[in-house]
Every structure is written in structure tokens, then in C-alpha cells.
């Protein structure tokens, strides 16, 4: 019935997709058409990028990283970038039946037509979605089977700091800030194409690898010891660098992206505009991979932030602005920023929010500035560890007094609801440490009732399983198995329930420990885990970050099949503690952190010794600034009053007769 589609590269496949959309849920997520989206003619450029956030559109579309790279690439005259997201299983099934390829939402071009596919991994749980997309694109899922007609697939994002588990699927991986990375890759691909593609695909990959900042797994061989540990990881060609460095973007003010944030039509997880106020964090929380791999701290200036807020509001029409960073209240001029913006948008419906605030950096003046126009969202703090001892181990230096003082002030000032985040399964943790979460929540309610004089205040405790991550002091640690994790969580739940005086004021939100084990396997695995991913995907694994799609049994079955001939298993990768001498799968990937410093910090954790923040104490030699030739870039700039923006003019008013 259907006539064959003679496919012209870069041509839209929308008419074929459109026929499927009436049969899928939320079709709007597949049609694009976002405000500020860019469409460029296919033949007008040399290098064509498809950027994928391998999760559902509602999660992926607001992602800042993808939006930034999308603009950075599209600003170039010789390149274009379009976006693609994971399709839900209902559409995947129809696309397979009707042979509709994975497509971009901007111009509905086939993914296989692009030169480069950039995959942004905030979490390892997107790996199976990557395989679905590559497969739907008609591209072999194994990198070794691709030829010159296929795009090169580049992984980025935090998970790319250990790309070994996906080394068989991606052609390259980039660590660190993406802005300069995509520009460099674009240059290399353009030159290689313009020179007539010397040495084909391998020639291009070699050029990427020779930079020393782009990791190309095929040029590295992994040798194993008999007991399953890695013996060594070595380049298999002359001139290929032994170590690959991360990218670090300096001077955020000269990179004010996104300048025109995308405004999706479909509902997404973040219905607001975001402005990144600084990058990096040196608080030194030992569990926190983000804080370790994004050093040093680089602040955007107060005036740079104000310009991005005003420009973004004009271009999007959003009414909420989130001031993003890993710990937003730590900006040296956060008070001036909050007051300046609150003054500026006084009387408008514009709301400001600070998604990540530390207990010790929070103060009520700041909170009041942020809620000046009457919108008062709940307050969220993350003590992470229930006991004082635990917080010393993880170096989250927040005392119980800090917390009680802060929440008392908040309840006293009219807040009714405080949310607290904790982790379970931290190194050296005992049942007792976790039970102290309940104790802390009781103290919070007690203090809150006293401060507010009311009994209807609430505290919600949100607790998740800890997953040790590469490039952190806990990279050597044993992960708690899911049975023990669940047992601790149930004990905590029972203790809160049994509390007659305070229990009803405390809400508890937690997830079981099983997904954390799969995340742990994917986080600290090596190339052998790639086989598990492939097996799980073939068995139907999709959207592993969604509880309704995740199947622990499917992953465990896949692991026993894929690792049957190996001396290693899931426990070996997750619950096994590593020794200092062990070659780690990511050992050749340079985040700047000195391996000896990381080990010392791990030993300090075990001895419950803290480490200060290098923004206000002397350098403690984590290694990053020396290794990467970077430096801390923080204020204060001394600007205390923000200029009011030019009054926005409206062209809609009727002329008034004089």
C-alpha cells in the first residue's frame, strides 16, 4: 500500500510521523514548534548536530545543558543543531511497525542523517533510551559496526565521567563543560569533511582523540587480572594520549546562554526559566559527584545575572525565574542579587526561586526577598545525614543547631512546610544513624510549633539510597545492598509512625533500594557492564528512571546472562569496597582531582574529619586548579544596586486623545 520513501538526507519525515500521532499519548511532545526553536536549511552548513536528552520530552526539554549547546552550535554559520528526545513505548512500537526513524523535533529530520549525535547524560539511567534511539535511527548500536554513513555518537554530561559502561555504544565521550567542547568537535568534523574525509570514520575519531580532551574508547584497550580487576588501560595506537582531560569554561559572563530559552508548548517538569548563577562547588560533600567534577567555582557577576534574567523574561514570557547552581545561596552576592531582582520586579507577577540552598547559607531576609510578591513555595534543605557523626563522614558540615535555628526562623516567619532531604546507605552508616533522621524531624516540628505557635506545621522527610560515584572520595566505598537499605528505611518509617506526639506532622517519602543498585552498577562499572546494558535493553529495558518502567529483575537476569563467563557480578561492582591499588575503570579520565587527595579525603571520611571550603580557607590541594590551569572566579564585584532595566514598552495600548 505505502509507496517506498526515497529519503533525501535532511528531509522532514513529519508526514509519516503525523499519521501515528493520533494513536499516542501527549502527541504535542513530538511536534516541536517551541518558541525560540531554530530551524536552519540542511545544505546551508557543514556540520549538523543532533542533541539528545535521553529521557521523555517533559524531562529533557527544560534541560539547561542541551539548551545551551543548541544555541552555541546554532550561532555558528557553518553548523546547525536540532534536538531529539526519547519516545515513549507506545510511539516506539508504531515507529517500528511503520518504519519511521528516530527524529528531531525541530525539523523532523532523521537522526541517522546527522554528522554528530550528542547525548547528554545527567544520569546513567538514560543508557537504554540511548540504545532505543540509535536503533530506531537505523544505526548499529555497537560502535564497532558503524561505517562512514553513520553519525558519530558523543556522550557528555555528568555520567560521561565514567563512559566505560557505554564504551561499546558511543564513539566518543566528553567530560566537563560542553560549550567549548562542541565548538572544537564542530571544527574538527568540518575540516575533516572539507578535506574529503581522510581515513574515513576512524580518521575522524583519531583526530578527536589526539586533542587529549575527547575520549575515544576504541583507541584504549582494557586488560584484566584473573580475579576480574582491571590490570591496565592502555592506548592501542602511537600518539594517543594516556589521559584525557575534562573541559572547564572560565568567565561565565562571556557565555550568557541560553540567550533565548526554549518555551515548550507541552507541559514539562520545570515551568520556569533558569539562570545559572555559578558553576562548580567546593563545599566538599564527599558523596556529591557534581561538586567534585565541576570545580572550581566560577560565578556569574550580579550584573550578568540581572541581564540574563531580564532578557530571558522578555524572550520567554515565563513568570518564574530559578537561580540555578549547585548551592545557590553560596553566591558571594546572593543577598544583593535577591534584593535587586525583587526590587526590579516588584509589582509584577514575576517570581524568583532558589532551587538549592544550604541550611547554613540560608537566612530569612533572603527568603523574604524571594517571596516578596506573595508566592511562597515550600522550603527545602538537605542535611543528607541524620546524625552529626554521619554528616562529618560525608563532610556536610551542617549542625543540628544550624538546622533548628533556620527552620525555627522559617516557621516563625510564616512558612508552614519544610522539606528535608537525606540519604541512606552512606559509608560507615548504622541503623542508629538513620534513626536519628526521625529524631531530627521531631526536633524540627518541636521547634516549629514553638516558633509559630501553631500545630498545623509540617515537615516532609525525603530519603533516597546513596550510590557511590566515580571521581569522588566515596568511589572506593561499598554500596549498601538493597535489602539492608530497605530494612533501614522501614525501621525509620515505623519509628515515625509510632511517634504519637509528632508523627502526624512528619511526612516520609522514600523509594526502595533496588533502582540504586542498577544505578550503582552503571556508575562504577567497566566495559563488561556494557554487555549487561545491551542484554537488558534487548529484554525490553526502557525509561529506567521511571518506576513504572523499571524492572530490577530484568536487570539482574540480564547481568547473570551477560556476565556468566566473567569472574565478576553485580555485587562485585556495587557492594564491594575497592583498595587504593585497584585500577579504576575511569582512572585514565582526568577530572583534575588528584587521586592521592581523593584517597586521603576518603580516609578522613572514615576518621570523621572534615575539610573546609577553599573559597574562604586556603587551598587544600584537591588538584583541580593546578591540573586544569583554572582558578576560582568569585565576587564580590561591589555592585550593590542593580540598574533598573529599560522600561519595557508595549505596542498594544490604544492612543489616548490629548
Amino acid at each position: 500500500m505505502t509507496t517506498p520513501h526515497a529519503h533525501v538526507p535532511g528531509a522532514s519525515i513529519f508526514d509519516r510521523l503525523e499519521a501515528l500521532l493520533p494513536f499516542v499519548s501527549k502527541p504535542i511532545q513530538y511536534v516541536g514548534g517551541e518558541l525560540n526553536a531554530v530551524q536552519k536549511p540542511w545544505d546551508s552548513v557543514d556540520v549538523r548536530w543532533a542533541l539528545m536528552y535521553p529521557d521523555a520530552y517533559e524531562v529533557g526539554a527544560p534541560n539547561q545543558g542541551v539548551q545551551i549547546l543548541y544555541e552555541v552550535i546554532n550561532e555558528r554559520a557553518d553548523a546547525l543543531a536540532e534536538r531529539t528526545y526519547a519516545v515513549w513505548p507506545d510511539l516506539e512500537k508504531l515507529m517500528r511497525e511503520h518504519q519511521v526513524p528516530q527524529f528531531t523535533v525541530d525539523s523532523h529530520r532523521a537522526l541517522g542523517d546527522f554528522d554528530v549525535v550528542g547525548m547528554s547524560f545527567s544520569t546513567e539511567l538514560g543508557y537504554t533510551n540511548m540504545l532505543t534511539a540509535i536503533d530506531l535511527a537505523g544505526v548499529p548500536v555497537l560502535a564497532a559496526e558503524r561505517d562512514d554513513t553513520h553519525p558519530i555518537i558523543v556522550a557528555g554530561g555528568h555520567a560521561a565521567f565514567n563512559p566505560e559502561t557505554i564504551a561499546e555504544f558511543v564513539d566518543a565521550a566528553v567530560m566537563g563543560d560542553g560549550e567549548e567542547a562542541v565548538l572544537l568537535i564542530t571544527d574538527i568534523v568540518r575540516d575533516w569533511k572539507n578535506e574529503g574525509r581522510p581515513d574515513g570514520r576512524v580518521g575522524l575519531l583519531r583526530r578527536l582523540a589526539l586533542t587529549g580532551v575527547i575520549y575515544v574508547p576504541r583507541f584504549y584497550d582494557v586488560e584484566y587480572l584473573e580475579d576480574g580487576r582491571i590490570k591496565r588501560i592502555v592506548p592501542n595506537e602511537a600518539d594517543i594520549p594516556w589521559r584525557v582531560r575534562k573541559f572547564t569554561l572560565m568567565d561565565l559572563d562571556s557565555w550568557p546562554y541560553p540567550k533565548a530559552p526554549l518555551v515548550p508548548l507541552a507541559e514539562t517538569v520545570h515551568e520556569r526559566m533558569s539562570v545559572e548563577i555559578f558553576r562548580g562547588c567546593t563545599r566538599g560533600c564527599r558523596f556529591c559527584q557534581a561538586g567534585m567534577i565541576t570545580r572550581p567555582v566560577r560565578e556569574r557577576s550580579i550584573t550578568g545575572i540581572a541581564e540574563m534574567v531580564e532578557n530571558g523574561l522578555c524572550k520567554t514570557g515565563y513568570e518564574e525565574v530559578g537561580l540555578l547552581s549547585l548551592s545557590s545561596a553560596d553566591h558571594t552576592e546572593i543577598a544583593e542579587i535577591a534584593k535587586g531582582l525583587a526590587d526590579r520586579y516588584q509589582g509584577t507577577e514575576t517570581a524568583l526561586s532558589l532551587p538549592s540552598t544550604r541550611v547554613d547559607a540560608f537566612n530569612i531576609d533572603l527568603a523574604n526577598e524571594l517571596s516578596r510578591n506573595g508566592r511562597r513555595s515550600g522550603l527545602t534543605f538537605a542535611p543528607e545525614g541524620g546524625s552529626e557523626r554521619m554528616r562529618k563522614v560525608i563532610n556536610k558540615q551542617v549542625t543540628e543547631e544550624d538546622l533548628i535555628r533556620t527552620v525555627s526562623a522559617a516557621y516563625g516567619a510564616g512558612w508552614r512546610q519544610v522539606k528535608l532531604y537525606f540519604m541512606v546507605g552512606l559509608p560507615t552508616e548504622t541503623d542508629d544513624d538513620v534513626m536519628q533522621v526521625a529524631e531530627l524531624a521531631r526536633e524540627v516540628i518541636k521547634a516549629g510549633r514553638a516558633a509559630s505557635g501553631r500545630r498545623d506545621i509540617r515537615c516532609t522527610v525525603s530519603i533516597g539510597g546513596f550510590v557511590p560515584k566515580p571521581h569522588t572520595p566515596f568511589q572506593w566505598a561499598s554500596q549498601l545492598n538493597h535489602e539492608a537499605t530497605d530494612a533501614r528505611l522501614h525501621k525509620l518509617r515505623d519509628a515515625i509512625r509510632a511517634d504519637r506526639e509528632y508523627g502526624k506532622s512528619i511526612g516520609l517519602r522514600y523509594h526502595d533500594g533496588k533502582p540504586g543498585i542498577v544505578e550503582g552498577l552503571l556508575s562504577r562499572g567497566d566495559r563488561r557492564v556494557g554487555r549487561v546494558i545491551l542484554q537488558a535493553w534487548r529484554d525490553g529495558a526502557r525509561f529506567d528512571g521511571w518506576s513504572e518502567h523499571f524492572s530490577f529483575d530484568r536487570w539482574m537476569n540480564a547481568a547473570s546472562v551477560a556476565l556468566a563467563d566473567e569472574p565478576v557480578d553485580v555485587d562485585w561492582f556495587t557492594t564491594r569496597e575497592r583498595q587504593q591499588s585497584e585500577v579504576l575503570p575511569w582512572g585514565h579520565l582526568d577530572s583534575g582531582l588528584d587521586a592521592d587527595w581523593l584517597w586521603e579525603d576518603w580516609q578522613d571520611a572514615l576518621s570523621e574529619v572534615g575539610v573546609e571550603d577553599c573559597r574562604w580557607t586556603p587551598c587544600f590541594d584537591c588538584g583541580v586548579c593546578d591540573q586544569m590551569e583554572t582558578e576560582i572566579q568569585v565576587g564580590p564585584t561591589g555592585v550593590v544596586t542593580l540598574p533598573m532595566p529599560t522600561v519595557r514598552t508595549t505596542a498594544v495600548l490604544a492612543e489616548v486623545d490629548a
Partner: protein
Amino acid sequence: MSRRPPERDVALAVQKLRVHYAKRGRLRFSSHRDFQRALERALRRAEVPMAYSAGFSPHPKISYANSAPTGVASEAEYVEIGVTQRCDPERMRAALDDALPPGLDVVDVVTAATPDFVNRLEASRWRFELPGVDPATAQVAADTFLAHSEVIVERLMKNGIRKFDTREAVISLTVSDESGVSGSQGSVAGDSCAILEVVTRHVTPSVRPDDLLAALRIAADLVPPVPPRVTRLAQGPLIPGSSEIGDPFAPDRAALVSTS
């Protein structure tokens, strides 16, 4: 201490504007909620001096009329907006059209000069493109449907499955032929493409395009091989004694002329 909404200038609406817009092309897959968000953002981008309700979560004063279902395109959607300063309708049209994504297009704006706008939207004219359906077959199906005095369909509603008649609401149903004209839904055998135009009266529960397709299936076994492309062509008052639909803005325009 109880919280009170913050002091703000609760400016009253000094004018209401009625906006006629279209939902075209790929944006026909936007839902009503998607449109609401897009419109509120576009109003802010266009610096329209919106009137807000008072209270803790102020919301803009916008009234939505019966919107076309998700997946159905429309040339005739209506919304009413309250503003705190007098606006020029044509400037408003241009600014709002500019601020909305392409595919959500503002056709016309008038100052509301008469009450009861929603009641004026008495009927809709729908166009169904049926690729792969022979016009003669469609004509037989249309005649069969029209010969019935009642065609009951089922729809899942908030409180369960409800059965209701579709025939009564149909004022006219005509078939034309666009075979050979290439559609955008992909090629279908023989390239035949019947076009149905249906005028429905707005009743409760409303008879929507899906209900009409269900009715044609039930009454006349008409089953299109691919999903039809449906567009609302017009919405407004029924001109008495005909199946024509009038301009719902006509009374506002007339009132404006008589006062100026």
C-alpha cells in the same frame, strides 16, 4: 499570625478584548492546557496589561470558549481577555500573533461591546479529510447517517461511559471530492480523498469530531484507513433557516460603529 495576600494594585479590567485565533498544522496536537500556558506567556511577552484576580495565586482574567479537541485543527477559536489599560485591538492582534509560536495564529481582535459572547457560539462547521476513502462511499455513509433519526455513541467521561445521540446535533453533512489532491498524511491507495463538511449545533454533551466519526462507523460502517484530518472551519451564531454560521464578532463591531 495568618498570612494575607500581599498588597498589590488590584487594577480592575477597563476593557475586554475578544480574540479570534487559529490552531494550525503541527500545533493542532496542542491541548487546551498547552494553549492556555502558551497564551499567558505570549500576553506577558507582548506586554499586554493583563488584569489579574486577587488572592494568593493571582491568575490573569482570561475566559476560554469551547476549544477544539487535541489533534483537531481550527480556524475559529475564541478567547476573551481583561486588561487594565485600554488597548487597540489591531495592535493587540499584531503583538499577540508575534508573541505566539507559528501555528497559533491570531486572526482578529475586537473590543467586547456586547454581553453573552459564549452563548453566541451556537454551532461549528467541521471539515473532515478522509484520505483513502472514496467520495462515493462517503456519500452513501452520509446519506445513511442522515436517514437515521438517532445515532447513539458512547464516550468515556469523568463519571464513566455515557451514551448520547449525535444525529440531532447535525444540521448538515455534505461530501465533496478531493481525490488526487495530495494530502500530507502520506500516500494512500488510489489517492482518493473524500471531504466531509459537517455543521453541528453546540449541545450538551457536545458532539465532537470523534463522536461524529464513531457515529458514521456505527450507522454506516464507514471506517477510514488512516486517521482523518479534522479542522474546525467556523464557529458562531446559526443564521436562521440555513446551515450557515455567522460572524460572532458582528454584534461587537456593530455596537462599536454605533457609539463612534
